[in-house]
């Protein structure tokens, strides 16, 4: 028993060498494939998903023609969920991606250059962390209305300081390692060290953070809508459906539960897929 555990703690890759059917990998790929299909073709499959049909409001699950029932505006829950995939999945991708790019660039600079560069960048990061999101949200709503893309930009600004700090901490951890000193001794340019050498070692951290931000951003796109910014009522969007469903929580709970489950399933699929791919990569290197 002890021997087994020893080897598993010390070398997880060794464990993975045992023949394991790629159940997780395949399941994740299927889920993500379906999500992608819904995002690309949802509006073709269900062109009338957002059609308001007040006569059929709040029908319970299992009603004829509506397996999951209808919401407060009479729209079929299944149809609007499929149609909502695109809005749900695209914006957050840009939010998480944008935050990652900003975070990587400034985090590397701050952690590697240190000194005054770090000081100034870190204080700017502190400033962004301290600005109340509600205030920013209300101002954005007032100036630009409930625009999807302005909300995306607002969220990038909100998420970025966290990414900067995390990347910076990763750099601080790495920068004292021998390979960095070696690179310096070889007179490699800072940019090369940062983006060729450090970044590669930061990649696991970045990937984990990106995926978590992605899941987070899906909800965040609709979370501030009560202030007038973000995805507004009635839009086909899982985060939005989750919030709108509050109104009918006790008449047709599936209006909220369906998008919640979908968000969770997609977010888990993405995270587990990344883990599975990573451990397969690890197999090859055989430490």
């Amino acid at each position, binding site marked *: 028993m002890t021997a087994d555990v020893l080897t598993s703690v010390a070398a997880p890759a060794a464990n993975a060498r045992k023949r394991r059917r790629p159940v997780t990998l395949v399941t994740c790929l299927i889920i993500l494939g379906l999500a992608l299909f819904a995002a690309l073709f949802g509006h073709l499959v269900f062109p009338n998903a957002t059609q308001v049909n007040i006569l059929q409001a709040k029908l319970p699950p299992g009603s004829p023609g509506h397996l999951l029932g209808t919401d407060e505006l009479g729209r079929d829950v299944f149809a609007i969920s499929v149609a909502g995939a695109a809005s749900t999945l695209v914006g957050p991708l840009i939010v998480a991606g944008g935050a990652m790019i900003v975070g990587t660039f400034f985090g590397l600079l701050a952690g590697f250059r240190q000194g005054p560069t770090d000081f100034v960048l870190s204080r700017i990061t502190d400033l962004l962390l301290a600005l109340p999101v509600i205030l920013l949200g*209300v101002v954005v*709503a007032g100036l630009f209305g*409930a625009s999807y893309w302005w909300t995306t930009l607002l969220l990038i600004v909100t998420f970025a300081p966290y990414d900067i700090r995390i990347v910076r901490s990763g750099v601080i951890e790495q920068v004292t390692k021998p390979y960095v000193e070696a690179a310096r001794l070889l007179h490699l340019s800072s940019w090369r060290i940062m983006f060729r050498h450090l970044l590669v070692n930061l990649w696991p951290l970045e990937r984990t953070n990106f995926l978590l931000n992605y899941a987070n951003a899906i909800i965040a796109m609709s979370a501030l809508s009560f202030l*007038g910014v973000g995805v507004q009522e009635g839009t086909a969007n899982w985060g939005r459906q989750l919030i709108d469903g*509050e109104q009918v929580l006790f008449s047709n709970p599936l209006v909220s539960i369906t998008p919640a489950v979908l968000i969770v399933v997609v977010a888990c699929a993405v995270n587990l897929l990344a883990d599975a791919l990573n451990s397969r990569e690890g197999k090859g290197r055989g430490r």
Partner: protein
Amino acid sequence: MSTINGRRRLRLYAAGAVAAVSSLVLAACGSSHPGASASSSSGTSSTSLQTLTVAAPGSRTNLYVGDQEGTVNHWIAALVQEGLVWPAGDGTYKPALATSWSEPDPTTYVFNLRHNAKFQNGQPLTTADVVYSIEFAKSPKYSAQTAYYLSDVKSVAQTGQWQVTVKLDAPENGFLGSLSTAGGLWVSSESYLKAHLNDLGTATGLILGTGPYKVTKFVPDEGVWLTRVSTWWGGVPKIKNIVVTFYNDENAEYLAAKSGAVDLALWVMPTEEPQWNSLSGFYVTNAPEASYVGLIFNPNVAPFSDIHVRQAIADAFDRQAFVQDALKGGDSEVATAMTPPVALLSGYSTSKAASLLSQIPQPAYSLADAKKELAESKYPHGFTATLTYPNNGPQLGLAAEVLASSLAKIGIKLNVSEVPIAQWLGSFANPKIGLNFMWDQLATGDMAEYVEAMLGPGNPSYYSNAQIKSLLAQENTQTSAQQRANEIIELNKLADDTDLLDVPLWWEPVGMAFKDGLGIKNYNYATFFTPWATDIYQKG
């Protein structure tokens, strides 16, 4: 302790935690529940009226209504403070701190005060207190949000040991209502008001009145605790303590009720009524037509300056279907005007009033007509517009979405957006907004309550004309109640049809959800603007 056991324990613990959380999440989604709802955390059992736990929607941070006006703020203050009169709910007024009154001429009111009224701290009410309170309520500095009600008051004076005379600038038929807590007067002691000029209504300043309950604690954004007093001229109330908790989330409120922590839920929205009715142990009682929802235009703002555009919008909303399907189970009705029949009670019976109001030309739902109207307007190809609604009125959001979906079919793109209630209220001050919702509740019960607000000076349509002005002047001085009702119906007609400043959508009731063992006497729209806790009784 070997490392193997340690790790296995750790593993089991973690697996158990994860499994427990997942299963609880799944279980929580199931709607069945074990039936036995344990005693509430507030310690109320349904057979005792020791403590009445009340759930109030939304939050408040100041108890003095002059500083923070809101329908629920009025209701809470009505337990503690009184005005000179109360609305009776049929257009007439009952004595509160004034036992009788007379109107020697149209601009003069003489009130005879109660001799035995006392404040909750034991201090007796004096006429000087009443005079000071009226000045205080009229002051834009100290009662910024409600000074409007007393803006026509020219002078207030003590004219006898227990007599106060109020003189107005101009006759105002509904003025008595302004001197109630449904309007703009909350009588307090002069010394108390002077001592709390800087913190009246806050957690330290509280409020002092002559009513049956005193405030023992106020935590802004959390709740208010009240205890009965023996100083009220109306007697000692049966309910000893009242705890009002503020709920910002309607589902949290519902869950609290399900677990027995709530005896009375105030102002259940029409869209929530079905679920409260189906909650075992609760029932909803309604004051019909107490709340009005409609669209309001500012005809100075393009494209709403074009009457064809306004007509197109009016024709595009299927009011019947909306009330029947979106508001089903909620006792709402299509509004034939702004002023509901129940407000005209002093002039006509409800059924007569309803029939008269329905004779106002009504917009009929027809997308074909709407399209035709738009084609005749200056904007035949449509346009884009915005409509906002407050975040505490989900039924308005639903209506907005339905309207947007109809208008899309005739080429008008309507962007709907939810905003915080303070922002929505503030939007009425913006003269550049051409289309908005109007959502108002009957309070004083004066016939002209809505038409004064929507058509009088400073109205949210930023509009007036000679006809409206003259009719308003007439109804303000009209002595015959029936004639006055006719004039008000005429004003509604001008607003809804001739000048098309408003599109009445529906009248909804103000519903209160009570625990099964409790009842309330004579519930109407005015009840909660009086000391309503004294009307609550235990059912035998």
